[in-house]
């Protein structure tokens, strides 16, 4: 689609040495099938979706009218939507920070000499390969008021900590965040472990001989080399956090009292339960803006800090 012959010719002329026989025209058959799928599944529906956000379409009626930014105005004044925005941000940020912190600590501990490191890596990564909906149902049971978690807390004399984990609007969202963190910390760990493979042991040893403590060693030797892993990890957990759906839908369906609604569940509910397609599309656009802004900002920030130090 971006096949502009004059642009190609120009590039070919201005960069002769590296361009020997790779001007590109021979390569387009390789990219065409991917472009077709991508345009059909992601780009066109995405643009259509953004377009529907300016209409009052109900999803069934073939006729609908353009309503300008009415859906967005309604969204700004809808306490339920505002709540969902805050929930989504809170969930994404908390899950990203904790997943990466826990994942990093696990990776640092299991990169070393422990005899049990191989089996422990499997243990911490295991939730990643279990069906999300299996995990969601399992935790729904664990969180029941007389369920395993509260039994354990009462058993060790911490009755005061026993909660109605999913039924109390004040903590339900964080109970769900805990599920997500339990599920994906191992994923961060694996990527950090992979990144740690590029930290040479001699360099750590040299630093340690120079009298660097564990924190100094981490900050000056390990962290800069981990920059690519940090970038990938933050990106993946943020995007995952913004789009959490299964865990919420299975455990609370957005309740109690809408306290766990995220933008994802709100999109789904408005589109497929309330028949408010236009409004639902506007919510999806807001979600897109969040993902894009956070994604780009954190990518550039990490890139800069990774290069600077």
């Amino acid at each position: 689609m971006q096949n502009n012959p004059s642009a190609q010719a120009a590039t070919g002329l201005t960069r002769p040495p590296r361009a020997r026989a790779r001007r590109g025209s021979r390569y387009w058959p390789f990219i065409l099938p991917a472009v077709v799928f991508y345009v059909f599944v992601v780009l066109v529906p995405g643009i259509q979706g953004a377009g529907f956000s300016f209409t009052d379409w109900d999803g069934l009626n073939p006729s609908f009218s353009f309503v300008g930014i009415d859906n967005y105005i309604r969204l700004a004044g809808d306490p339920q939507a505002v709540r969902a925005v805050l929930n989504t941000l809170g969930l994404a940020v908390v899950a990203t920070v904790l997943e990466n912190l826990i994942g990093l600590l696990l990776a640092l501990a299991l990169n070393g000499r422990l005899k049990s490191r191989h089996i422990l890596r499997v243990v911490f990564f295991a939730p990643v390969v279990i069906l999300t909906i299996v995990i969601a149902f399992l935790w729904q049971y664990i969180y029941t008021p007389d369920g395993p978690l509260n039994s354990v807390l009462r058993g060790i004399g911490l009755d005061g900590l026993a909660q109605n984990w999913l039924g109390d609007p004040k903590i339900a969202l964080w109970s769900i965040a805990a599920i997500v963190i339990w599920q994906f910390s191992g994923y961060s760990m694996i990527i950090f472990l992979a990144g740690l493979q590029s930290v040479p042991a001699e360099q750590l040893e040299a630093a340690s001989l120079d009298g660097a403590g564990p924190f100094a060693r981490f900050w000056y030797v390990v962290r800069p080399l981990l920059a690519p892993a940090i970038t990938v990890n933050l990106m993946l957990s943020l995007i995952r956090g913004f789009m959490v759906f299964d865990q919420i839908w299975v455990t609370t369906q957005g309740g109690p009292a809408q306290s766990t609604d995220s933008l994802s569940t709100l999109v789904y509910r408005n589109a497929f339960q309330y028949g408010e397609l236009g409004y639902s599309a506007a919510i999806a656009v807001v979600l897109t803006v969040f993902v894009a802004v956070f994604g780009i900002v954190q990518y550039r920030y990490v890139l800069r800090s990774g290069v600077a130090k």
Partner: protein
Amino acid sequence: MNRYTARTGTLEGVMILVGILFLFPIYILVNLSIRPLDDLSSPLVPTTNPTFDNFVNAWNQAGLGGALINSAIITVVSVALIVLLSSSAAYALARATARWSTVSFYGFMIGLLIPFQLGLIPLYKTMSQLGLLGSLLPLIIIYVGLRLPFSIFLFVQFLRQIPLDYEEAASLDGAGVFQTFFRVVLPLVRPVTGTVIILNGLFTWNDFLTPLLYLSGSGNQTIPVAIYTFVGEYATQWQLVFAALIIGALPVLIAFFFIQKSLIQGLASGVKG
């Protein structure tokens, strides 16, 4: 750096303890799934008279057999297409120096930032106009399109680190671009191919929302949808539910145990600067 000191021993003890705590939910899952329906003791207490009846009953009542086959077909076909299309697209994007290649690369990367929800409804509408609802085909098309950006990203990153020498040698020997791609490039990118297969396989096998929408009302279901429906019907019989949950989780868990080493190595090549 290979001394095993007292501090290492302490760390080992702490990590094993953390690992056991971490597995607490899995213990509950397994413990209840092997428990007879009339055993009402606390879920924390190990089951005294284990039984496999729950697995048999769950398998039969949830129709997990058909769902397993559907999930397997969707996963295998989608992942095969994703690998083929993303590796070939990445080859073009990494090797062609024309401007369209840079523009297309960023075009694909935009896809990483577009949440699926944005196109969810228009795409559903299109698929229903094409009469594809209820079949496995729209799911495969969606997974391929949806997963291309991330897979292309991984392949391009890797290809950019591979020197051109092999391909140049092949082309000096008279190989065309297609021959070079299939005979030289595909074998070279094998480490990333492993990662791409695993990550996309997991995503496809796990996905719940898409089949929930596209297969609802049809006789077809995938494992996550079958389990969701089953739990809805038997919500109070946790033993049965947990047996079904284990059946759904087991295939991937087994696969993971065999490939965990190559998974870590594959991911390593993806995040090296």
